[in-house]
Every structure is written in structure tokens, then in C-alpha cells.
């Protein structure tokens, strides 16, 4: 049986940095007077960024107060969108795509490899060194290059094998910036093993 849960109230405090207050005000200014609540997504992103990639309850309530919204309304928004994290995350969140194309191409192995490399036993657990947390996500829209993972809502690493997945993570841990995109060297979603069509330029008459 599945039992749903939600995050219980947590202690702690949150406040925007002075720079972020300025940013937040500029976001709010994009909406008409009396419609400040429209800026809630912008402010939540800002708060998440400032709070090491996740939104604590104090951060959520701070945003609610900032926008003069009822806290529950902001909780609703945060819990609806998967991009908002309500538990602490690693510095790099490995988001492994598990939808059909990636799954057929072995996303299960990729997930396993990533968890091994991070040294965690379940999703959303933060690795001991604080670098990684692994989750599975639904289709990232890069089916041509399956299997794929995304790092912290940002770069895509494609055409993964368990080995190359681990290699990317090692590089991240070492503070390097691994090249996003295909890890087999192909350019974007060209066919594997070189072009099969349009191999020559034909002059039009």
C-alpha cells in the first residue's frame, strides 16, 4: 500500500541576501500592481538557489511573506513542481531519465551506476561527501541520445554507459567541467557511426 506524505514543519530561518532582495523586487516589478503573486516561481527559484538547491519550510514561508500570500498557497506551488526540492540535495543532482526510450536503452543500469558512484542506496539521499544525490525523472526529451541524465536542472549528458556515467560524476567531483552532450563523441543527435544521408553536398541547379 502506498502512503502519501508531506514534509513536516522544520526549524530554521531564511532571508534573502541583499542582492537577492533587489533581484526579487525586479521580478515582482514585471507584474502589474496587485498581481505580485505571479512572481512566486521566480522567487522560489531564487530562494532555492540561495538555499543550496532546496527549499526549506522557512524559505517557503519567507517567500509567502515576501509576496503577501498565504503560506499554504506557496506550499501548493512548491509541492506541485518537481523542479522544487523539499529535502536537502547534493551539490550535483543526477537526474536520470527513466522514460521508455532511455529505459529500453538501459537507464536502469545507469541509475545503478550513478548510485554506486555516489555511494548512496536510495533516491534523494545525499552522498556522504555532499556532492551527489540521484533521482529518476520522467522524459527529458532527448530520446535520440538515450540514455540520458541531467545535472542539477542544467546540462544534459547523453549516450551514457555505466562507465561514462561514472566518469562524468568523477569529473564533477574533481571540480572539472565535463563536456555536456553526447559522451560517445557524436555531434548532437546525428546517427551513430557517422552520417548515412546527406553525406555529400549537391549543388542545386
Amino acid at each position, binding site marked *: *500500500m*502506498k*502512503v*502519501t*506524505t*508531506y514534509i*513536516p*514543519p522544520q526549524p530554521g530561518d531564511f532571508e534573502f541576501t541583499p542582492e537577492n532582495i533587489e533581484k526579487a523586487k525586479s521580478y515582482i516589478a514585471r507584474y502589474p500592481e496587485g498581481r505580485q503573486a505571479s512572481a512566486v516561481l521566480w522567487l522560489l527559484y531564487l530562494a532555492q538557489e540561495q538555499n543550496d538547491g532546496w527549499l526549506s519550510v522557512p524559505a517557503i514561508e519567507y517567500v509567502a511573506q515576501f509576496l503577501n500570500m*498565504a*503560506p*499554504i*498557497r506557496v*506550499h*501548493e506551488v512548491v*509541492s*506541485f513542481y518537481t523542479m522544487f526540492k523539499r529535502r536537502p540535495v547534493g551539490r550535483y543532482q543526477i537526474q536520470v531519465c527513466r522514460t521508455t526510450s532511455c529505459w529500453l536503452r538501459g537507464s536502469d543500469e545507469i541509475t545503478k551506476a550513478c548510485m554506486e558512484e555516489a555511494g548512496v542506496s536510495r533516491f534523494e539521499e545525499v552522498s556522504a561527501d555532499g556532492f551527489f544525490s540521484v533521482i529518476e525523472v520522467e522524459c527529458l526529451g532527448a530520446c535520440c541520445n538515450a540514455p540520458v541524465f541531467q545535472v542539477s536542472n542544467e546540462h544534459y549528458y547523453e549516450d551514457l554507459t555505466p562507465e561514462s556515467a561514472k566518469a562524468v560524476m568523477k569529473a564533477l567531483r574533481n571540480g572539472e567541467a565535463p563536456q555536456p552532450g553526447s559522451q560517445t563523441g557524436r555531434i548532437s543527435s546525428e546517427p551513430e557511426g557517422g552520417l548515412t544521408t546527406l553525406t555529400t553536398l549537391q549543388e542545386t541547379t
Partner: protein
Amino acid sequence: MPKITINGREIEVPAGVNVLQACEMAGIEIPRFCYHDRLSVAGNCRMCLVEMERAPKPIASCAMPVGEGMVIHTDTPAVQKARNGVMEFLLINHPLDCPICDQGGECDLQDQAMAYGYDRSRFEENKRAVSEKYMGPLIKTIMTRCIQCTRCVRFATEIAGVEDIGMVNRGENAEITTLERAIDSELSGNLVDICPVGALTSAPYAFVARPWELRKTMSVDVMDAVGSNIRVDARGREVLRVLPRLHEDINEEWISDKTRHVRDGLSRQRLDRPYLRIDGKLRPVSWEEALTAVAERLRGLPGERMAAIAGDLCDAESMLALKDFMTGLGSPNLECRQDGSKVGGMGAPRSEYLFNTTIAGIEQADAILLIGTNPRWEAAMVNARIRKRFWQTGLPVGVIGPNVDLTYRTLWLGDGPEALHALARGEGDFAETLRKAKRPMLILGSGVAARPDGQALVALARSIAETFGMAGPDAPEGWNGYNLLNRVASRVGGLDLGFVPGEGGRDLEGILSGAERGEIDLVWLLGADEIDMSRLGEAFVVYQGHHGDAGAHRADIILPGAAYTEKNGTYVNLEGRVQLGRLSVFPPGEAREDWTILRALSEIVGQPLPYDNLGEVRQKLIEANPIFGRLDEVRPAAWEAFGVAGDTVPVPFALPVNNFYMTDPISRASPTMAECTELFVMPKLAMTGTEG
């Protein structure tokens, strides 16, 4: 007026209604869960699907406005199949725990599953379960039963004005929650009524009774002066619950938590037999002994040495009987205003003490001035109506007096008479707002009228009403925006009856100081518990009432009466609307209906009251004031002079109610109300010490 065709019948419906409402008008029932007439449309349960010609698929009738020439079918196989399908999906995650569910027997889901669902399930996976949520002492949650209709979210946001409930997560994980906070609203009990399933049920009523076991009595509430229409459900000799009854002009279909949950106070602290104080101790006696003892005390006592005070929950019949009884003994010392208010004395015009605009009339107002009142706690249904108007139009509301959270935006103008004077002089932005308003109204708190300078403040409020065209010659035709917010159920009835000091009679202060000085030998308390008992001095106190509260503690003799659910009584609400409360259960033990006690005593005293049954009492009521002959009707009161202009004391207004949950003997005896007090009121009192 668009014309639409429903199931081959053409009907004309008002513009702006939706297809579901149009079907209702055509007499066709459309099943629904999320749709509710008084809430915004969500359209998420999909139970109201109907077929519309030229639409590719069934439409949700609650979310589709009618258009000219629409052709709707509600009885086709496709519609039946759609309902079947929706029902099956709704039941996928709904537990089969109807036998242990408090909603059983009055559950929308149960009824509609019977009417529109399949008779078996094809679902073989695991069901989901949702953990229970905490919503305070009045609401029990079993969230696995929730079908995510979001009625409760919309009710809390729109009607109650407390944004505490929301739906978090999404998809299969979606759930209703309050984030473990109790819902701090005096309307929270209504969440139980609007929940179409057994997810939110009444906590004090949990596992108490099944709906088909209950005897239902249509009655009215006396917890405040609004006179909410209620249905009293009883089994055997006990009232088990109180539910709202539809009355568009008063409470719509809501009631306050006090009205709903006070019922457990009805079976506690009851006076169920007569008591007589012998050697300083109250001892049980028989009716005969008790009445003889009173008669002996009364023998030879001159009228001016006795007095009667009527309490807050009295019905008009008992007040009439007491008035006739006292008058017969030659006493003019009658008082029904326990708070010391001077409003509504002998010969006062009705417009002085009524809520002249009427509750439904609030929906025409375009500016409101609240003076020294917290309508949220003094008359919750009035506040709900103001909130409704605010929700519709965002009308400006000015507040003079303590600045409390009223669930809508208010403009605070000051805390005492100075602000009122400034407004009368036309100073400030709010004066401009009132001047521009077409139908402005003011609501004067009963606490203001009860101040020592009450008459001067009433006169000041009256002049404001005339200056800004709320009432009087400058007001729009048929509009009277001057309102006194009475907060006790017996007040308007008492004033209409003239239960006030007669020629040369003493008012409340006169009675109390008279008793203190030994000029009053006998005080009759008819359910009066709110006065300062220590000031009754050496007077012999007869307490006639139903609860062992302050009055009974001081009493020398106790005559047990009936509570509002135990007698057929007439009550006049703050608008001046006469309504009948009906007997649901008999009074406990030897307690009797109040007017009959007085009738019996009058026989012994030798001054028999001229009525022997309820019909004759009511006839006398109508003779005393013809208003009692017009049930459930509000007659506009003539705008006449009242109030006495004079100096006001520059002391801030104080609120008369500092604990919504405990205002009368019944609610003080109720454990549920005690729990609410501890949870909702105590923290606020601790915070500032002045919260009202």
C-alpha cells in the same frame, strides 16, 4: 435570456448560468461532487459530464456557461457510460469502509455510486492511503476517503476567509492539508457539511449516531442574535447534533461553530430539579415546596421592592409571562439588558435597536463603517455576509475600535470616540469614501451602546448616518444603513415586548445598586448569568433557568427551566425577524417550560396569568406587540429620533466578547467549546491581553 434544449425540451434560462444550473431548472438532476452553488467552479471531479451537440466529447456541465441554442443531452448511453467511468475512477482510491464511516447514510459518494456507478470493481492494484491531518478539535479527518474535490479549500479561501487549507503534491500524491494547523475560523464546522464524502467529519460527533436514527426538528439558534436556522437532531432524550438549515436571508446554509458544537453543553451542568437554600446550602426540594417558598417571599412585598432581570437566551413567551407576573405584583423594575445598555428603553423606536439594513441587505452596501465591534465574534453570520460582499466587490470597510482580523481588508480609523467625532466632522479619506458611496451603512457594536456614554455615542452614530446619507431623508429610497449589532438572542424580543423599566422603574444599574443598598428585597433572574452577582447584596434571589452558572450559584431558590432545544419559543433576531424555535427533546428531570413555571406560581400567589396554553400565550404576545404575529418577516422600522446628544468620554472602545466560544451558560458548560477556547482564544489573550 438564452434558449437551450435539454433532452428535447426547450427552456429559457437566465443569462450567465451554467449548464448544470440550467438542467436543475429543467428539473433534471446532474450528479456532482466538486460543484457547489456558493463556491467558485473548480470542474475537477468530472461527475457532471453531459453531452452537448457539436462538441467532440462530453462537457463538464458545471464549468460550461449556457449559450443561445445549445442542445444538451443528459440521458444518452454515452453520458451514462461517462458517469460510470468517472465513478469507477473516483472509487479506485476510495476505501470500502462505509460501515465504519460517519458519513454513511448521508454521503454523496455513496448515494451517487448507487445511482450512477458500476456494481463491482475491476481495480486490482493496491489502493493508496493518505495519512490523517490535524485540523483542530472540531474536524476529524480520514484523508484516504478524500476524492480531491477541493470544496474545503474553496470554502476556507472564499467564504471563511482563512487561507489555511490547500492541496499539496500532484497526481496520485495529491492531498488536502492544513500543514498541521488548526483552522482558526468560527465557520470551520461547515467544512464537514460541504465535504461530499467522509474525509472531513465532525470530531465531537464521531461514532455517535447514524442519520436514520435521529429525530429531526427544525428550529432556530440562540447562541447569538442572528437567529440562524438550524436542524436539531436528537435521539432519545439527548440532542446529538445541530446542523444548518437553509435561510437565504439569514445564514444561507452556514452556521457558526458555537451554534453547531455547543450541544454537548446541553447535557452538562443542568438544573433538573428545584432547589431551595436552607441554612446557606442549596437543597433539592419538590416543585410544590419551591413554589410555596417563593409565594411566601412575595406575600406582602411591595412591587417597587422586587425586580426581574431577563437573560440572554430567553424566549419571548417566558419574558412575557414574567413581565405580566411582575406587573401584576405592581413592580416596574424589569430589565432585559444585562450589559447595561440604554438602547431601546420604554417607547424607543424600533430603528434604534434593529439591524435595519437586514443581513441580506449587506449585499447591496458599497461602504461599511464598523464602530466598536468585532462582528466575527459577535455575529459570525453577519461577518460572513460582509465577507461575501467584500469577496464580490472589495468594498471599503472602516473600523473604529479595536483593530481585529475580520477576514477581509479593513481600514482602521481610530480606537475611540475621537475618531467617530472626526468622521462626523467629515475629516479623513474615509469620510470622502462614505460621501461617495451610494448605499453606505454603519454597524454599531452593542458594546458601544452599553458604555456609560452610550446614549451620546448612539446619537453621534445617528448623526453620522444622517450626514452620509445612510438613513433619513438623504438615504436612497428603502435604504436604512443604521445598524445596531445586538449579540444576544433575547434582546430584540425583550425590547419589542417592553421588558424594560416601566414608569418610575429601575434599570439594571438601579436594580443592582438598589439590591446593594437593601432597597430591593427580591430579584428574579430569568436565565440571567452575566450580571455582577456580588452586587445583589442581601436580596432574595430566584433563579429560573436551565444551567448551573453564576445565577444559580447566587440563587436562594432555583426553578429549573428549559433550554432552547427543549421548548417551543419565539425569538426575534437582530433584524427584527420573528422566528419559532421548536421543542426537540423534553427538559431533563423535573425541569419545565419557563412560561408554565410562572403560570403555576401565579396561581399560588393568587394572581393567575390569563393564559393556559401556548396558543393563548402567543395570542397575548401579539396583543403586546403585533410584530409577533408576523413570522419570518422583516418590517422596515420608521426612522425616528433616538439617542441623547451629549459629551463622550475619550476612552477607547472595548469589545463585549473576548471569547467567542464561551458567551452564555450553555457554551460555558460545553467541553468542546472549552477545547476551542484553550486552542484558539488563550494564545491570543496571552499575546496582547487586550484582544477582543
